[in-house]
């Protein structure tokens, strides 16, 4: 009986962290397909929401309100980044696109560091319900369960919006074939703005969900050095996106959960492997890259249209 519990607890933990990767991956794929930019600054845009939340929560704003206000910050930053920077880079110039997203990452991360430098936050008030809940004989954190529920709920809502609403379908058209969509009268700037806005919001939610896991370890004191762990979230997020071939959204979400599970279940593995999270992630990602997962989801012709 004792053996069963760690597996279930770890699974819950894994799914919860996987929720974050999945949400990040959804945002990444959405932005990539709609605007042609792989957003290496995705984590930094989400980070701004985390900083905003910390700021507001420490100022005494009620946590749920602080959370909602913080969620609004990222879309603003993301849309500003698109309008002032990414829109000006010609799509075909892949090198400059990636370098600029790195520049934007640096910009936002430094902004976050600056805010952290001015104010030392001593409290990290959690916005998710605390406590424990019983499930199948194991004791799980309520936070984990709620995280999974929130992530799945938001993701499903987003996927439904993407599939069934007019705006969502317009975005899909742009994602599949920008030229054809423009000929059909769809405004690709507006679509891109919406994509960046939603993608950034998803990133914000993802980072806010994972916040207690990443930041709470220093005994409540958040310092500038805590920024970098947020950046490393980008890697499993890429992996999740690759599971969907950088095009399929539901697979990206599933990939997120998969990566989260593998990461946490690794704890139960024999000794050298249990500390090798990044290596296992790297191996998985390299395998996905070599498999060229994109070709399972996109035909060669569609890919040509995307490159244009």
């Amino acid at each position: 009986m004792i053996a069963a519990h760690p597996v279930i607890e770890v699974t819950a933990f894994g799914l919860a962290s996987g929720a974050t990767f999945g949400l990040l991956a959804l945002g990444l794929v959405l932005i990539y397909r709609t605007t042609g930019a792989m957003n290496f600054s995705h984590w930094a845009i989400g980070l701004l929401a985390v900083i905003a939340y910390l700021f507001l929560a420490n100022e005494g704003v009620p946590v749920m309100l602080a959370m909602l206000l913080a969620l609004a910050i990222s879309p603003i930053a993301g849309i500003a980044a698109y309008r002032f920077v990414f829109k000006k880079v010609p799509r075909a110039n892949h090198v400059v696109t990636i370098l600029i997203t790195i520049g934007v990452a640096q910009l936002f991360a430094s902004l976050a560091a600056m805010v952290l430098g001015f104010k030392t936050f001593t409290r990290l008030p959690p916005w998710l319900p605390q406590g424990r809940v019983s499930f199948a004989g194991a004791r799980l954190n309520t936070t984990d369960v709620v995280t999974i529920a929130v992530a799945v709920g938001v993701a499903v809502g987003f996927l439904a919006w993407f599939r069934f609403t007019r705006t969502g379908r317009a975005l899909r058209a742009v994602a599949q074939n920008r030229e054809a969509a423009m000929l059909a009268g769809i405004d690709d700037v507006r679509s891109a703005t919406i994509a960046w806005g939603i993608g950034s919001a998803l990133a914000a939610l993802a980072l806010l969900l994972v916040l207690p896991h990443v930041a709470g370890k220093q005994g409540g004191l958040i310092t500038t050095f805590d920024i970098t762990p947020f950046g490393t979230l980008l890697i499993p997020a890429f992996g999740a996106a690759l599971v969907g071939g950088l095009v399929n959204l539901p697979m990206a979400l599933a990939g997120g959960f998969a990566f989260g599970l593998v990461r946490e279940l690794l704890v139960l593995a024999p000794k050298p492997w249990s500390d090798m999270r990044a290596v296992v992630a790297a191996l998985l990602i390299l395998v996905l890259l070599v498999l060229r997962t994109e070709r399972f989801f996109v035909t060669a012709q569609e890919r040509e249209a995307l490159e244009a």
Partner: protein
Amino acid sequence: MTQTAVDLAPPLPLPGIRRRLTSAELAGLAGLGALALLPLPFGSFGFFVGQFALIYAILGLSVVVVTGYAGLVSLMTYSFAGIGAMVTGIAMASWGWPFWLALPLAALATVPVSIIVGVTAVRLKGLYLAIATLTLADALGETFFKWSRATGGQSGWLVSRPKPFVSDASYYILLLVVAMALVWMVTGLRSSRIGRAMLAVRSNEREAQALGINVYKTKLIAFLISGMLGGIGGGFLALLLKQVTRSAFQSPLVEATSILLVTVVVVGGIDRALGAFLGAVALVVQQQVFQGARFFFAYFGIYSAGLLIVFLLYRPGGLMQVARLQWRLIRARPRVGITVAVSIIAINVGVAWLFVRLG
């Protein structure tokens, strides 16, 4: 029966490739000479800044080759530097090797990693390569840079400079000579069969293939050279710090929040070796100037990120491009040109003064 095509026309006399130095180049060399003497009035701090700048210049050359020439975005420069530093540390502190043996080993130690990248990601789109390098950098951070036998545990490796270069001034001169030699080499690479192949691959991979260029081998070579340059920079970094600890190299996100890209882009554009050299010098010096300001790390991060974005968007050729365009403007419409030039300089000086005052 194969038949080679007949020559198109009788051969012309071959043009020489040695040229006399132009006056602009002589002036440039004089400028570099003056630059080299810059640290003198600032004592050992000045030399430290100079050495640091020169190491950044070497790392910048690594970026010039892999990204500037071959168009591959690699987020592994610091990882290569870390490998170089660690291997230098192990070789010198643990095995007692002299520096001039440890350094080549440091460069060679990067080769296995370059090959892993070459084998997995070189046949893929540039974006996938970037992701692969980020992932590998992270994996290295977790394994190699946590492995005690490689990193010397918490306290790291203690290395000391070889006899003739113990003093700050002499180590500075050594670095200066090495950095400039590497700039010369990387510049030479550009005007060569393999260098032009890299530029071609960056510009239009399909056309490069149609002209007979083995694009995969070209990309791999770019990675190998870039990795070795990073390793060399790391080796010199080890000697600079005299104590090599792992903390500096563990996180690949250091790359994403670093000034390395800016130094490479801002002066000469991402594909000019000399530009990378001057940019490293300019920015590291500025970084030290900003030291005085409160929370300089954040300010400087914002400032350098802003520079990177602005230059990539509007002047990818860097300050050299700005100067060229400005010169053209001055010759075409002198009054307008000079006004613009003077106001740009005035604004820059003003902003710098403001920053120092606010700090």
